């Protein structure tokens, strides 16, 4: 509801802004390009996740000192802590590193950024990163056009960094008009008020210019020209340190919750460091004087003394905040939670139940049922069907002719929320239980393990099916639409039949009920393949549609087979030990095929359709 009002309001405000101010247009385009760059980078890093880059990152950030050094060195090379922070956010969003490692990098980046002050103050150099934007984008697009997945990944990263730079460039351009109004000499102040006001000016200037580096360059130049007092310059440097977090915050808007947590950690670190520096300004200044005297820096060389101060207070911040990394991780994980991502967790597993194999097998059975229940929802939604429709009284055959109603869900996100944690916990629990259980329980645990794997396989097959199903189940071509809807009905019929298995029945009777579901599934599969041949012969579908139908038919068969395998494994696992009656009374595969033949498509065709 809120987004329905919020989004149009943003559109209207943006349109208004674009018409009244060119600078606003530049700033907004800069923010958009910046965020697009973040998305491109995330896309690129995902290609490398699990591979060399992840190994490299893991090895260079597995210890705190390593992640600190990683941040320090990369920031010193790139001369932009903001860029290192946003790249770290995209690493984190792609789950290539953990939050603690990310925080280590950000702390290191804060130290690395102090080298900028030394370079500017010492050599007057400045690495202009934005000039690399265009070549990076060109090389990136060239890589994107290649067929190799790795080159494509590298392309996304290059294009991402290019857009990031371009975004920063546009933001700077847009804000240049406002930046001209920031005349430092006009606000020269002394005492605590001076400190606070200039810290604020430093924050605002950095937010406006999107670069603490730029603020420091301005400050050093102003200090060298005597436009700003030494004390005010120190406050500006503190402000620049706090203001630089805005880039990471902007970058985290389009990132996952872990990215937001890292931006939070960055903000906390820079705020705390800033506050400490403000409180300890006098001792810090005294230390700067002492260091300057020791290394032979002149008493009036304020620019180098500013560089010492910048390094010193960042070092102090890192030293004070290092022991706080783990508490900070815990705090951020507790307080920064995604509203949309509430993950379902295991309900029945506990370490204590592992002690007794009977209790453990019951717990594993219940948890597997829990997982199956969640998977049921996912598969229903993946087929663009509501659970209430699948389990209700609606005649599923009526869905065959109508264009499918889209259910807008992200299956990957749903998988993370509803399946991943329970699945992982189940496999771990079953493995541990199997290791300590006697042979009589071995089969039961093996069945449950298999059921869990089949549940996930059914979801994966649904995900693959969904790609073409989305397009064809709403196609204006009635022939292809009908066949894709028949796929949905095929899988939904199995889901409905499984849901109707009565828990109160004897487990052997329930197991025998599966024979009927299997026969209808075989009949439906036979009917589907004969229909494709007919449609091709009649020219009702193109050859491309026919191959899609054949390939997706395999996914439907997989969904059905995995669902049936899950149900069978769960029922067998709930049978009393040594119960073989079910095995003896279940139909053999040839009986199933024999009866299925006599059905002649009755499982997936309606009477009306048959008459056609």
């Amino acid at each position, binding site marked *: 509801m809120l987004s329905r009002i919020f989004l149009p309001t943003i559109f209207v405000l943006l349109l208004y802004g674009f018409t009244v101010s060119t600078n606003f247009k530049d700033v907004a385009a800069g923010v958009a390009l910046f965020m697009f760059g973040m998305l491109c980078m995330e896309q690129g890093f995902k290609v490398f996740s699990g591979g060399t880059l992840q190994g490299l990152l893991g090895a260079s950030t597995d210890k705190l000192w390593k992640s600190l050094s990683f941040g320090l060195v990369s920031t010193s090379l790139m001369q932009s802590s903001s860029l290192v922070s946003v790249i770290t956010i995209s690493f984190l969003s792609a789950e290539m590193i953990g939050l603690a490692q990310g925080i280590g990098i950000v702390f290191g980046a804060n130290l690395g950024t102090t080298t900028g002050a030394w370079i500017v103050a010492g050599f007057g150099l400045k690495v202009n990163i934005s000039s690399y934007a265009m070549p990076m984008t060109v090389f990136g697009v060239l890589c994107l056009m290649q067929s190799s997945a790795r080159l494509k990944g590298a392309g996304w990263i290059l294009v991402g960094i290019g857009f990031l730079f371009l975004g920063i460039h546009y933001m700077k351009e847009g804000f240049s008009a406002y930046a001209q109004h920031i005349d430092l000499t006009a606000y020269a102040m002394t005492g605590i008020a001076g400190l606070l006001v200039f810290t604020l000016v430093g924050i605002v200037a950095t937010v406006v210019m999107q670069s603490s580096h730029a603020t420091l360059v301005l400050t050093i130049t102003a200090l060298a020209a005597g436009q700003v007092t030494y004390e005010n310059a120190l406050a500006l440097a503190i402000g620049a340190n706090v203001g630089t977090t805005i880039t990471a915050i902007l970058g985290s808007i389009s990132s996952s919750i872990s990215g937001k947590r890292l931006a939070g950690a960055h903000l906390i670190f820079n705020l705390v460091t800033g506050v400490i520096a403000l409180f300890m300004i006098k001792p810090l200044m005294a230390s700067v004087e002492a260091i300057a005297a020791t290394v032979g820096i002149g008493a009036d060389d304020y620019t180098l003394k500013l560089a010492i101060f910048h390094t010193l207070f960042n070092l102090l911040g890192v030293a004070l905040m290092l022991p706080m990394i783990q508490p900070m991780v815990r705090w951020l994980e507790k307080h920064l939670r995604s509203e949309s991502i509430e993950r379902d967790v295991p309900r029945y597993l506990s370490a204590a139940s592992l002690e007794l194999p009977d209790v453990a097998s019951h717990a594993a059975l219940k948890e597997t049922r829990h997982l199956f229940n969640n998977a049921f929802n996912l598969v229903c939604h993946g087929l663009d069907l509501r659970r209430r429709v699948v389990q209700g009284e609606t005649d599923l055959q009526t869905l065959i002719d109508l264009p499918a109603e889209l259910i807008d869900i992200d299956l990957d996100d749903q998988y993370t929320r509803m399946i991943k944690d329970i699945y992982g916990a189940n496999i771990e629990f079953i493995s541990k239980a199997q290791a300590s259980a006697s042979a009589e329980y071995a089969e039961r645990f093996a069945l449950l393990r298999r059921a869990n794997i089949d549940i996930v396989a059914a979801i994966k097959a649904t995900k693959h099916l969904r790609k073409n199903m989305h397009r064809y189940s709403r196609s204006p071509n009635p022939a292809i639409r009908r066949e894709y809807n028949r796929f949905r009905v095929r899988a939904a019929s199995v889901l409905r039949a499984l849901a109707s298995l009565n828990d109160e029945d004897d487990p052997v009777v329930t197991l025998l009920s599966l024979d009927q579901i299997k026969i209808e599934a075989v009949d439906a599969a036979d009917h589907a393949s004969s229909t494709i041949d007919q449609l091709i012969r009649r020219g009702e579908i193109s050859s491309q549609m026919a191959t899609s139908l054949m390939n997706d038919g395999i996914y439907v068969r997989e969904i059905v087979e995995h669902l049936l395998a899950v149900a069978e494994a769960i029922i067998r696992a709930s049978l009393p030990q040594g119960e073989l009656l079910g095995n003896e009374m279940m139909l053999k595969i040839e009986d199933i095929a024999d009866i299925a033949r006599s059905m002649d498509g009755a499982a997936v065709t309606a*009477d009306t359709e048959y008459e056609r």
Partner: protein
Amino acid sequence: MKRKKLLEKLNTLLSASNKPDAEQVRKLRKVLKALKEKQNHLQAELAEAEGEHERRKLTNQIEVIRRQREKGVEVYKSIKGSRQ
């Protein structure tokens, strides 16, 4: 009543070696009864069904249960045979 209970207890004692079989037969009878009930229910549905497809589906469902019951009877016969 008392005598009947005593006789049952005596029977249990004497047929201790047949206990697993007796348990299996009891279980088999229970399953066969449940299947018979299901079959009757489906036959009643078939009598009222109108559409050709619906009738074919129900006929097949009945056929599945018939074959399963047949297998159950075979199991019963083999248990009886092994007792003798």
